[in-house]
């Protein structure tokens, strides 16, 4: 944690993030950086744009302007509405194109509608091309799109691949799945076994499953949920569901963990345990943490740095002691109605 202080090794760098909903500017030109190993917090009154900013970083909303870098990798570009994947326009036509290709090339070729050898060649070509387009599609298509510099706004799963994981304000576990399965889903991005490997249960697939299962059990032990593996996720008490959500996020082996009100609805004892856990995640797993929290005891006690948002703008940033005495922050919290015009 201290090693990161010298070099500007940024886990997250958000530049001039703006997000509008119609006429409402929820987040306005917010610059935000987190050095590796820091526990950073975002606070602000209700409606300050904290959650919107969070969702932009997590890829749920595309920013209207601005872009985001995670581990130095630029994501979310271009902004919404700029250049779209041209292929998207064709999407509604895909079934018809597919049917036409199939009949004209594959069936037509087989039926001998064309001259001699051409018929067979067309049939094979049609079959192979359609097969490539569909079953092998993702890889080829992605490469093709990248070569022409056409990108789409990053989505949450792209963010996870880049090294980010998150929890939700209102717990969103996979309700009917077991505790262990919830965590296994969290590890999804690190698993590679595909259709063939799964269907034939190759050694690689089996090894991968066994090792991910072992890691998941270790994670459960790490957050203190050992022994609940086969219980249905929602049968756990509330506080443990929060822990499970964190464990699920950790399964993605993130470098940056976003926690949306991790201590919401917890009693003082649970809150203290949660605070300790967040510290352990940073210290033992070396994961940078960004959290939104309303409980000021948690925020002041745990954060290395606090950022205050109000009306979608960043009004202050600094260490807990500075924030506590910052007049702008006090105004935002206490004089909300009167000070809205600043």
């Amino acid at each position: 944690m201290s090693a990161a202080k010298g070099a500007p090794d940024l886990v997250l760098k958000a530049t001039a993030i703006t997000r509008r909903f119609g006429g409402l500017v929820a987040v306005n030109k917010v610059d935000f950086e987190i050095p590796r190993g820091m526990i950073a917090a975002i606070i602000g009154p209700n409606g300050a744009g904290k959650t919107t900013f969070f969702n932009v970083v997590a890829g749920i909303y595309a920013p209207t302007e601005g872009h985001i870098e995670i581990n130095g990798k630029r994501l979310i570009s271009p902004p919404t509405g700029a250049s779209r994947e041209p292929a998207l326009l064709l999407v509604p036509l895909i079934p018809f194109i597919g049917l036409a290709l199939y009949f004209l090339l594959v069936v037509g070729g087989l039926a001998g509608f064309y001259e001699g050898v051409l018929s067979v060649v067309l049939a094979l070509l049609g079959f192979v091309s359609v097969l490539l387009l569909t079953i092998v599609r993702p890889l080829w298509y992605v490469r093709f799109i990248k070569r022409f510099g056409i990108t789409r706004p990053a989505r949450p799963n792209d963010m996870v691949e880049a090294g980010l994981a998150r929890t939700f304000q209102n717990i969103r576990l996979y309700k009917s799945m077991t505790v262990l399965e919830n965590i296994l889903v969290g590890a999804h991005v690190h698993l590679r076994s595909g259709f063939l490997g799964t269907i034939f249960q190759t050694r690689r697939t089996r090894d991968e499953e066994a090792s991910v299962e072992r890691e998941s059990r270790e994670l459960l032990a790490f957050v203190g949920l050992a022994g609940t593996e086969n219980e249905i996720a929602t049968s756990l008490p509330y506080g443990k569901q929060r822990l499970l959500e964190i464990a699920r996020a950790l399964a993605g082996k993130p470098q940056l963990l976003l926690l949306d009100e991790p201590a919401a609805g917890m009693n003082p004892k649970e809150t203290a345990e949660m605070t300790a856990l967040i510290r352990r995640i940073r210290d033992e797993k070396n994961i940078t943490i960004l959290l939104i929290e309303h409980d000021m005891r948690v925020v002041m006690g745990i954060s290395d740095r606090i950022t205050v948002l109000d009306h979608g703008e960043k009004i202050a940033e600094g260490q807990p002691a500075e924030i506590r005495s910052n007049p702008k922050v006090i105004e935002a919290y206490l004089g909300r109605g009167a000070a809205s015009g600043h």
Partner: protein
Amino acid sequence: MSTLTARFAPLRARSNAYFAQHRSLGVLVAVITIGVALPLISRIPPFGDLQSMNAWVNAFTIAGIYALLAVGLNVVIGFAGLLDLGYAAFFALGGYTYAIVASPFFDIHLPFWPMLIVGALIGAMFGIFLGAPTLRLRGDYLAIVTLGFGEIVPIVLLNADPFTGGTNGLGGVDKPVIPGILEFTLINPWPFYVLMMVMIALVMTVVFRLQDSRIGRAWDAVREDELAAESSGVNTVISKLQAFAVGAAIAGFVGVFNAAKLTIVAPDQFKFVVSISAVAAVVLGGMGNPVGVAVGAFVIYLVQSIFLKQLNTLVDNFNIPVLQEIDFLEFQYVLYGIVLVLMMLKRPQGIFPAKRRIRIFKDTVGGAK
């Protein structure tokens, strides 16, 4: 009696635990047991009187087709949570794929066995084609669009006369042949029955393996909470397309068998009612449970094709003019309606609700990292 069950309880627990670890073996044992036991039904008095053994075996084979359709649809509806009302389209495409390359229509006669795989691939392809435009849709909207595609395909098949023979369809489709050993015939239902059982074992194994893999877990996650799934790193677009593809591949696979068994494919075999019967089977059996939906399909098919038919002959014997005019076979639609409504009201999770798999930790790879 109770002491007897008590004595076998530990044995049952042990066998359950064993088959939980070795599911594919479990599928094999179950399919062989059921495959041998089913024809014996025709030796039991009330059933045996209804029709001959061969007719029963034939009925079971066709019921197997419906069971596999339900198992395939269950991947889409039960696993990934995407309501697909146009499932018969893939069944049709599989059947036509085989009929085109193995009938006198074009005078091409490709062998049956590789076409099973090709039919599955074509099915998967169209699953992706038809799935791609619907990815942004959910619930009712998805149902309506898939319903539309389910109607488009038979209409295309009806109108693409030069390829599909139009209304008449393609007749005289080749039956499977094992060169030098066995030729499948219409008179002898047994080879088809055995082949069907093998197909059920194969499909069940594949489905179970997929369900327990990262792919299956991603489907579960997408069904439970799409936003959370994306935030866990699941690419929901790919995951949904995979579900459509697997479901459609199974339908294409069965479609090839169906074409070879009936020796004819025609557009009106693939009407909306086929899709609905598969949905009814999935709802009856229990969404998400492959065994449950297969049993559901079996029950629905047997009730409609055997007991409704028997009802016809039975009522004819009463000599009541009004009743004689009723064709109880038409009541299959009423049957689907009753099944769907009753299940939704009384037991929405189905007769055999899906259960989560219990994982017993066994560190099989030792030191692998």
